[in-house]
């Protein structure tokens, strides 16, 4: 019984450490002068539906309503910072709190998806786009499903 309790506490501790490590990563990027950071809070997301929520075959409102925040980290033409971001993204693969969902390679562009899922709903979804000379990380946090992400762009307009 004591052993079981110890195991549970250890796992919890590791999980918290994982989350803490993630926040540390993004804090590191946010504090870097060569990284452009855009942080969109729930308050601004709530305003989004009133300002051109739909454009063409898009439905941003459905996903935006379920998000708590969006973080966008971008670095262009600074090789050191780009390398740092690439290294950190590889470290993300080792992180057990995030599952690697998919990787897409198209011409010179590498796209990776990492997700933190609970009961078929995403709490955290990260997309990294590595184009060699620029790296973009988009992180969305909230309570949404895979269909919510898919339905942002209707099938007819995907290429």
């Amino acid at each position, binding site marked *: 019984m004591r052993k079981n309790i110890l195991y549970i506490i250890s796992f919890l501790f590791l999980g918290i450490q994982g989350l803490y490590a993630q926040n540390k990563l993004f804090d590191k990027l946010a504090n870097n002068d060569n990284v452009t950071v855009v942080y969109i809070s729930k308050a601004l997301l709530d305003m989004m539906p009133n300002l051109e929520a739909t454009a063409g075959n898009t439905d941003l409102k459905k996903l935006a309503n379920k998000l708590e925040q969006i973080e966008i980290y971008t670095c262009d033409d600074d090789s050191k910072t780009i390398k740092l971001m690439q290294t950190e993204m590889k470290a993300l693969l080792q992180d057990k709190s995030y599952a690697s*969902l998919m990787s897409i390679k198209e011409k010179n562009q590498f796209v990776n998806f990492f997700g933190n899922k609970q009961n078929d709903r995403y709490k955290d979804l990260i997309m990294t786009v590595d184009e060699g000379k620029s790296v973009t990380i988009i992180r969305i946090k909230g309570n949404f499903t895979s269909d919510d992400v898919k339905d942002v762009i209707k099938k007819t307009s995907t290429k």
Partner: protein
Amino acid sequence: MKNTVNIKELITLYFEGKTNTQQESFLKEFFSQENIPEAYKKEQLLMQALFQKDDISIPTDLEQKLHSTINSLALQEKQHKLFAFNKWKWMAVAAILTIAISLPLYFNQITQHDETAQISQVDKNKIQEAQKALLLLSKNYNKGLEQLTMSQETLSESTRALNKHLIISNP
């Protein structure tokens, strides 16, 4: 003759109001007869009507009844006026309440519109960035899922082809 003169005198005195009760009774009795001299036929109807009027009795409580009717009419008029006043009073209250409720709602709408209009350019830019980010994310997500679907189809076809080959080589 004596009776005829007497009757004429009596009629004159009657119209002057100088007859006593006895004389009035005599006149009443005379004109109530059917066979009276022709000279008095014309006056008979008038005298009969006058004497009939004298027969109408005035109820003793008439004055009381009149008073109570006048009072009730006065009360009705008063109540009608009060009702009219109350009706206007309630309409005024309803109008005030309507204005009191609708004005804040109207100004609240204007305030909300103003708030939206007052979003800074920086926030507008952030929202546009967020929109672009979500579009990019969804586009790549869908691309990945499409590739996954295509891969699954390719895998299924390959499995079918392999199975066919196995069946042919091992009949």
